[in-house]
Every structure is written in C-alpha cells, then in structure tokens.
C-alpha cells in the first residue's frame, strides 16, 4: 500500500470533481468521499462556495442587452420573411 488512506480524497482531487458533484453525476462512493472531505476541510468548503458563486455570477450574463443594430437587422429580416411568404 503506497497510500496510507486510499479511500481519502486529496484537496487537489476534490476540486476536480466539483462539476460532477454539483451535477449529481458522481457515483455513490465518490459522492460520499466528497461530502466527508467537505466536513473537515475549510479550504475545500471555501473553494466549493466560490465555485458556486462563480456559476451564479456567470448566470447573470444572460441578462445582457443586445445592440440595437442587431435587433433592427433581424427585425428587417423578419418583416421581409413575412411579406415574402
């Protein structure tokens, strides 16, 4: 046995599993490992919090406005399509 605790996840491994963890895509035993690790590791707990906050911040990009020019061009295309058909 080269590793003292083969079932234990290192922080470096845990951070790579977070997307699968959040998607509910981990198998039962990996998920339990992640959950147990998070109980005692403040570094990974903070990292997970930041990872979630990042996803939340990214989500806000959906509220961006579109340039007027794009809207007008497409509206022209729409009118043209309606009248042409």
């Amino acid at each position, binding site marked *: 046995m080269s590793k003292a605790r083969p079932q234990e996840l290192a922080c470096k491994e845990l*951070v790579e599993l977070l997307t699968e963890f959040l998607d509910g895509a981990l198998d039962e035993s990996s998920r339990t490992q992640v959950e147990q690790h998070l109980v005692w590791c403040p*570094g990974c707990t903070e990292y997970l919090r930041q990872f979630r906050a990042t996803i939340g911040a990214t989500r806000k990009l959906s509220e961006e406005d579109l340039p007027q020019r794009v809207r007008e061009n497409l509206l022209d295309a729409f009118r043209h399509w309606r009248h042409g058909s």
Partner: protein
Amino acid sequence: MPDEARGGALALLSAEDRALVERLRAGDERTFLAMVEKSHRTMVRVALGYVSSEAVAEEVVQEAWIGILQGLDKFEGRCPLRAWMFRILVNCAKLRGSREARSVPFSALESENTEGEKRPIESFRPPDDPRWPGHWAQGPDRWADERLADAEALVRVKAEIEKLPPNQRQVITLRDIEDWDSAEVCETLQISEANQRVLLHRARTKVRQALAGWAAEGAP
C-alpha cells in the same frame, strides 16, 4: 382549416412552444424580438465553436435566423422549438466552418488560446508530501461576497469567457449562462456527457480563477 394548411400540427409541442410558433407564423414582431433578445448572444457563442471570428459568427447567426424563419412554416414540432433552432444554427456554423477551414490557416483558429494560463493564487502540497500529499498548501482566500454583486464581476466573467477555447465557451454558455440541462447541451453540440462535464469544469475553473484575486480583496 387555415392552421393545418400553414404547417405541421405541432401536437407534440409544449403549449408554450406551440403558442410561440403560432405567433411567429402570424408575423408577431414582439414575439420574434423577444426570441432574438433571449437567444442571439447564446447563438453567437455557440457558433464561435465552429468558425474563426466573432464577425463570422454574427453572420452565421444571421443566416441561422433566416433559416429558422424559412423553416418555420414547415416545422412539425417533433422536438422542442429551441432544440430545432439550435440544430439549424449548428448546421449553419459547421458548414461555414468547414468552408473556412479551407481558406483560413489553422493557426488563426487556435490563436485565441495560446496565451499562458494564469498562475493559481492557491496551491497544493506536492504528491510526495509526507503527511498531506495533494492537500492545500495555500488554500483559497475568502471572497468578499458583496464584490460578486458588483458590475465589475460581470465584466471579468465575460472577458474570461471570451478568452476560453471555443468548445469550453460553448458549454459554459449553454450550461451556466443559459441554464440548459446537461442532456440538452450534449444533444445540441453532439458531445458525450463526460466530455461535456470536462469542458464545463475547465471553463468554470478558469472563470473562478479570473475572479479569485479580485474577489478576495477586502474580504474579512
């Protein structure tokens, strides 16, 4: 029955999608503009996965909108409206991409992502660490939560997403900006779940990184 003559019966569509299609067919501009508002940017980011520049992606998306309008009367509603729209988009983008590949030097397609990765602020102990291999050497600094509500956070997130490799940008756009579920993203981009998660994870990791140093300033 004028409706039947117009196009497919749309019986399989959700009530919401059916109403949209019917309003579009009737020439309702507000419905069309709302759809454009909602989907246009996403379509550009997805198109960027197949073509070389933002300008070309914009053109492709224009083309796709026209294709969508032209197909609308014949649309039978065998899949959700959004899936159908994005299928048209992806087809347009792939076609343009393959035409471009013959004229654009390959290096131009890759040039965006060659810059060096930023060094993480936090670090891990080496694998041969006697006590805690792979655990934090320097854990992440706490973030000041209010900073994430700042407009600056959005600017940083957006800039980082624009720097991502195109396939990572596609996935984070659909999953995290647009909140699509994993299955729909895989179907639209024709990639496996596992591949999709790897791309998403890399993208999220970089975006988090882009926020990290800044968000930690002024934290308690």
